[in-house]
């Protein structure tokens, strides 16, 4: 079958419904959000159409700067943690027996799809005083008394890594499965140990994949909207949490919208960078 450009109107038929739905319920809402970000906020949670930059001007505060800085820092930390463990893990997974791969993939998908609410609940339980991991330490004699480990930065970081790890593996998986296995074998015949071959051949060959994955996981972590709120202190709130808070609890839609627009721009720039890194890989 040769693919040909659509000629008659009927050829476009299949496109009508998807294009209409995506335009009406994604493009238009997106545009609405952008519009609202310029609206004037009124007391009592309403807003009136206007064109003001007040909502964006609020970015210039120290508070916002701190939130942004912490969001970026947290996302970077999570991305690095996930990739550092994820690359060797996925490499070994991709070279495991097929049955083993499928079992892991099912488990990873199940955890990835688990609601952020449930992940937050699970970790808050694990870190709690009455049902938490510290009870185990007490039982082992490592601690004298059980204690709560939340709220803390460590708790936020751990739970977010937990959430992003399955995603990391699934992003890396296609590239690592397709990696030519003779690459590492060639290094072995040249005298490199398996571990040395991994670091001197596999990792450099995957440099751009790893970079693209770092960025993808970074954006994923940037989207975490509940874990910092459930497991952290107010100073651990991220941009996503702040947007939710402003939209729902402070009823300040214009400011929430302005922050969301800002988050889109940051994400798009990073997606662009990831795509660029990916293309560098293919160009090589």
């Amino acid at each position, binding site marked *: *079958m*040769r*693919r*040909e450009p*659509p000629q008659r109107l009927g050829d*476009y038929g*299949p*496109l009508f*419904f*998807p*294009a209409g*739905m*995506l335009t009406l*319920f*994604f493009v238009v*809402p997106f545009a*609405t*959000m952008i519009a*609202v970000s310029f609206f004037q906020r009124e007391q009592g949670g309403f807003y009136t159409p206007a064109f003001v930059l007040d909502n964006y001007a609020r970015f210039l505060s120290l508070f916002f700067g701190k939130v942004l800085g912490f969001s970026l820092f947290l996302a970077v930390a999570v991305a690095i943690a996930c990739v550092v*463990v994820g690359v060797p*893990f996925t490499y070994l997974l991709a070279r495991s027996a097929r049955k083993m791969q*499928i079992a892991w*993939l*099912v488990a990873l998908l*199940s*955890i990835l799809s*688990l*609601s*952020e*609410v*449930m*992940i937050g*609940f*699970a970790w808050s*339980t*694990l870190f709690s005083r*009455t*049902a*938490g991991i510290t009870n185990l330490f007490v039982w082992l004699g490592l601690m004298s008394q059980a204690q709560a480990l939340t709220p803390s930065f460590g708790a936020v970081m751990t739970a977010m890594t*937990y959430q992003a*790890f399955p995603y990391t593996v*699934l992003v890396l998986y*296609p590239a690592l*499965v*397709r990696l030519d296995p003779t690459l590492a074998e060639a290094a072995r015949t040249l005298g490199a140990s*398996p*571990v040395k071959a991994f670091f001197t051949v596999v990792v450099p060959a995957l440099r751009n994949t790893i970079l693209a994955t770092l960025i993808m996981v970074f*954006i994923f972590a*940037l*989207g975490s*909207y509940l874990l910092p709120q459930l497991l952290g202190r107010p100073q651990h709130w991220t941009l*996503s949490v702040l*947007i*939710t808070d402003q*939209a*729902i609890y402070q009823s300040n*839609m214009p400011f929430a*919208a302005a922050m969301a627009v800002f*988050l889109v721009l940051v*994400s798009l720039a990073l997606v662009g960078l990831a795509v660029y890194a990916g293309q560098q890989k293919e160009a090589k």
Partner: protein
Amino acid sequence: MTALRRLLFFVVGLFLALPLIVVAGVSINQRQTLAFPPQGFSLAWYGQIFTNPEWRNALVASLTLAATSALLALLIALPLAWFLWRRLAPWANIFQLLGVAPFTLPPVITALGLLTFWATTGLYGQAWTAAISHGIFFVTLPLVTLSLGFSAIDRSLVEAAATMGADDRTIFRTVVLPLILPYIVSGYAFAFVLSLNEYIVAYMTVGFTMETLPIKIFNALRYGYTPTMASVTVLFLVIAAVIFGLVARFGDLPKLLGALSEDK
């Protein structure tokens, strides 16, 4: 290398399993306490999901939302993926991009966009708006699996059917559809499971009028603990594992996740 692999797999496995083990333990506590190791044994908290009207309503709402929104996502993705495969129209890739965008961007963005949209149109809070919102939000999943499925079809099969006298419609019914069916099923399954678990989009669109299970758990987290939260979490995990397990059993999961997708 084998020892190293075992160690790494064990550590990662433990990390991934630990919170779930604790939750599973908590879910079988006899009394309404948050305790681990569990004190006593009871499956009452699983019964609660189905007998307590509040939890049951939330479960029904979640299942209804997941079933309808996954169907909508599929109805959007199927003709789009088919068109992109069948026709040479580079400009139409913009819709592919639009389909992938909601899932790539931080979810709070899509959620807020839809919130402002439904609020502006005055439809905010209606149950069906959640189905549309999820349908758009998860259109990525069937779109990706179907694009993969179409690209796996040897185009000469379509030509062969034409030489044997089949017109476009017959070819779609007798050749394309049977070959794409596993991808339709898995695309639907992915969207279904993720919709079941989704919180922020549902919360921002219908959070004040309708309670899905994730919303219910979140509210319960804020207003007081009950072990039913734990039993629901375990139930959802089992549902996801069963569905993905079925997809793996009847389809090619490594291939679906991109293991062979770029050998075109």
